[in-house]
């Protein structure tokens, strides 16, 4: 990032190559729409480019891009007001890479998406950052703009719900 602020264009590409795939997975999990996920990733880097002069040299870039991306995802949800209740029925329409995946894998992926969709947005983003992005609670709290205690409570509730939705399904498999 320091090289990029100094005007090194190649450094921008290196940042995109490093964080782009991570953000793409993140946004896909939230939005279940490849086109929209791509747009949000591009918009994240567009905003990062605009905000580069705010970056403190030597600090971590990951929380920055995560916060920008999560803000955009939240803004998207707010705009579309898409908080529809979904069931655990398997729906393969929007599954990523659906055409190339065996049916069983596709169904697993879909199951995860549907389970995550059943969580409130505030819990889903905590699971996303804590579990999938492997961020500690303190960092998650900074990214979502709340206290660490509140993040722990959200995570606990989210994992309890996910366990009910997903682990009971494992027993069904067995």
């Amino acid at each position: 990032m320091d090289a990029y602020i100094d005007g090194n264009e190649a450094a921008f590409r290196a940042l995109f190559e490093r964080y782009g795939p991570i953000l793409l997975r993140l946004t896909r999990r939230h939005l279940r729409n490849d086109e929209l996920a791509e747009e949000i990733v591009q918009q994240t880097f567009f905003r990062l480019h605009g905000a580069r002069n705010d970056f403190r040299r030597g600090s971590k870039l990951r929380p920055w891009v995560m916060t920008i991306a999560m803000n955009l995802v939240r803004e998207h949800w707010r705009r579309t007001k898409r908080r529809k209740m979904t069931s655990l029925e398997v729906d393969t329409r929007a599954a990523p890479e659906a055409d190339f995946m065996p049916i069983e894998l596709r169904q697993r992926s879909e199951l995860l998406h549907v389970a995550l969709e059943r969580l409130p947005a505030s819990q889903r983003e905590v699971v996303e950052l804590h579990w999938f992005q492997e961020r500690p609670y303190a960092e998650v709290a900074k990214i979502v703009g709340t206290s660490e205690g509140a993040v722990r409570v959200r995570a606990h509730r989210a994992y309890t719900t996910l366990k009910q939705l997903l682990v009971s399904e494992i027993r069904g498999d067995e």
Partner: protein
Amino acid sequence: MTSGSERPEEGLGERLRELDATDSPGSEAQMDRMFTDMKARCDKNDRTLTGFLRSRSTMARRLIVLSVFSVLGFAGWFAFPLIGDNARTVPWTASLVTFCVLLVVAMFMVTRPVHLPALPRWQSVCMACVAVGATVLAAFWPYPAAQAATHDHTGGVVVGACMGAGLLLGVPVYALLRLVDRGNAFGSLVAASAAGLAGNFVLKAHCSVPGTSHELLGHASVALLFVVGLGLVHRVTQKPT
């Protein structure tokens, strides 16, 4: 994935890992195309005034806005006659100070860095309500009787003139704040509130027509029109991400 005692129970953890393994990151060609598109957008934006202003550091953007506000405020203060000495009461001064403080708060909200969590929606809505509320409240603080007696308040025309002037004065404030806004949610609503406050500040300082009805219809309506009008326009024209 997550460390020690913080991780969810093993059964769930394994299940999440297993289900997530099917989701692949983007291919190299896809990432390359995305980067090219995004870079072109950045380059195009860098060549515009908006892009230039928005890419300044947050400190610089705030200084730019404060400087413009100060210059306009001082120029207006000395260029146009203030209301009479006997009308410069404590409530009048308090109104001006309140408008100034709210204007600065709105400016801080609009120029909030994008790498910080977005402000909750209620704070922006609250800002708009407080801005309109302050202008309405200011209209109920009475002028001294001596000042009121010197005016024959004719209503309609003067109200229209004040409203027009207030709206006109608010437009540059709104435009400036939108120019330095990096895309905060509800930034338009907060900028509209600031525009209404700026218009009311100037009217309060220079308009010597007394009367609550005049201030309500000619002054407070400016803030209301900005908030409702631009809030609605923004909502209608807002594109999905």
